[in-house]
C-alpha cells in the first residue's frame, strides 16, 4: 500500500517535471516558457519530495521534506518574477500572437520606475 502511494506520487511528479521541460522547449517566448516551468516544475518537485516523506514515514524526515516543499513553493515565484522583470527590461520580444502588453511604454528606463497607467476613458474596456 505504501509502495503504491510512493510510486504513484513520484511518477506523477516526474511526469509534471517532464511536461515543464517540454514546455520550456516548445513554448514560443520567454514569458510563456517561464509560465510552463515555474508552475509545473514546482508541483512536480513538490510531489517527489512528498514521496520521500511518505516512503520513510519518520517524523523528523517528513518534516524536513515538507519544509523543503514549502521553501520551493515560496522561492520559485520570487525567482520567476525577478527573471521575468529583468527579461522584460532587457527587451524580451513577445510572441506575435500576444494581444495585450500592459507595461508597453510605461517603464522609465533611466529612472527604473513604472509610470502609473493612463486614465481610462469612460466606456473603454479594460
Amino acid at each position, binding site marked *: 500500500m505504501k509502495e503504491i502511494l510512493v510510486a504513484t506520487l513520484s511518477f506523477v511528479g*516526474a511526469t509534471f517535471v517532464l511536461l515543464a521541460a517540454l514546455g520550456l522547449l516548445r513554448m514560443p517566448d520567454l514569458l510563456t516558457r517561464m509560465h510552463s516551468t515555474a508552475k509545473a516544475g514546482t508541483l512536480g518537485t513538490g510531489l517527489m519530495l512528498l514521496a520521500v516523506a511518505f516512503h520513510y514515514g519518520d517524523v523528523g524526515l517528513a518534516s524536513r521534506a515538507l519544509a523543503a516543499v514549502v521553501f520551493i513553493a515560496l522561492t520559485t515565484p520570487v525567482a520567476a518574477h525577478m527573471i521575468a522583470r*529583468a527579461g522584460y527590461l532587457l527587451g*524580451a520580444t513577445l510572441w506575435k500572437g500576444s494581444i495585450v502588453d500592459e507595461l508597453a511604454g510605461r517603464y522609465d528606463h533611466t529612472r527604473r520606475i513604472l509610470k502609473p497607467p493612463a486614465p481610462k476613458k469612460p466606456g473603454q474596456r479594460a
Partner: protein
Amino acid sequence: MDALNVIFVILAVAMVLAVARFIIGPTLPDRVIALDTIAMISLGTIAVSAIERESPDLLDVGVLVAFVTFLGTVAFALYIERQAP
C-alpha cells in the same frame, strides 16, 4: 525496484529537453530559466535516489540544491537587470 527505473528514464528525457533549451535559448534569460529547470530535475533525481538507495541523508543535499538554485537565479536576475538599457 523496477518502478523507480521508469521514473529515472522520465527524468532523463526531461533533462535532455532542458539542456536543449539551454543550448539554443536565444537570450540570457532563456538560459537562466533553463538552468533553473535543470536544477529542478536534479532535485527530483536526488529525491528519487533517496528512495531507491534507502539513504535519507540525500534529502539534505536536495534542500541545499534548491537553496543554491534560488540564490543563483536571483543573482542572475540582478546581473541581467543591470545590463538592461
